[in-house]
């Protein structure tokens, strides 16, 4: 039996654990190396991937200590490679009282045009501290690089004592 013949060529993978930079980078490079698309499309997917993973790394309420010096966020990532698009999904725990403002910010992102978002990104960047730009600007970048509406969801898991924030970004392979 030809093992490869039964394998689909699209890429699907799931990761759950600490989102440290070495892991994010390795997965991102693997993802883009695997894709047979234009440079423009590959970079679009890579940038969305890195930004969305960094959102988990920086802002997940579940933290994992590394080197006893700093912590990184814990969460879950799912990549789905379909014929004409790639979807990147992440989910991570958040503080309960962040849920409403997060959802409001996210819904606003989808209502802005890309030009308006670029202007907003520049304004927020200019006003931000160099030490922490805040989650909002990263979410704007995800939306700008994906060029598509981003799906956001707050998931309540009462048995796990908390709320979770899920993002799904889609990048069209041919148009990006």
């Amino acid at each position, binding site marked *: 039996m030809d093992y490869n013949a039964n394998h689909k060529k699209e890429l699907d993978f799931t990761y759950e654990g600490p989102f440290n930079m070495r892991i994010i980078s390795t997965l991102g490079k693997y993802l883009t190396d695997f894709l047979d698309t234009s440079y423009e499309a590959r970079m679009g997917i890579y940038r969305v991937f890195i930004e969305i993973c960094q959102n988990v790394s920086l802002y997940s309420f579940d933290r994992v200590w590394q080197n006893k010096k700093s912590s990184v966020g814990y969460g879950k990532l799912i990549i789905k490679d379909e014929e004409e698009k790639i979807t990147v999904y992440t989910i991570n725990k958040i503080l309960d009282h962040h849920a409403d403002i997060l959802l409001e910010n996210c819904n606003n992102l989808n209502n802005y045009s890309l030009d308006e978002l*670029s202007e907003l990104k520049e304004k927020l960047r200019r006003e931000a501290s160099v030490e922490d*730009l805040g989650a909002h600007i990263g979410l704007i970048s995800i939306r700008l*690089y994906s060029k598509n509406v981003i799906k956001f969801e707050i998931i309540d898991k009462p048995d796990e004592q908390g709320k979770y924030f899920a993002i799904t970004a889609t990048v069209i392979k041919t148009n990006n």
Partner: protein
Amino acid sequence: MENLYINDNPNLVYFPVVSFNYVNGVCEISGESYMEETYKFYQPLLKWLNDYIAEKKSIDFNFKLSYFNTSSSRSILEILEILRKYKVTGGKVNINWYYNIEDPDMVGEINGFEFETGLEIKAIAVDLK
């Protein structure tokens, strides 16, 4: 004052290579930039630049970054702000940004930095395939 060269992590693609030359004033940042605690990486670059321009020498700054995250873009803005202030006081500053010819998103980023700082940034398309 000495040259500044940083390539401490050649296997970690999220650290850019930095080469600031004191003798000829050519400064380059190349590769990708999305490390943790970005501002800590960029602090010595900002200090070097401030020390360098205090000597009133000319500077050619070449960006060759194919990707930088939003945190890095804040530090890049700090670099450009130093260059802008130097230029308005009469310093000779030339800024180039090399980008892949198939990367229109990078052109948008360059235009954004130009708009924000008022600096002229020469965008140079290259074939990096």
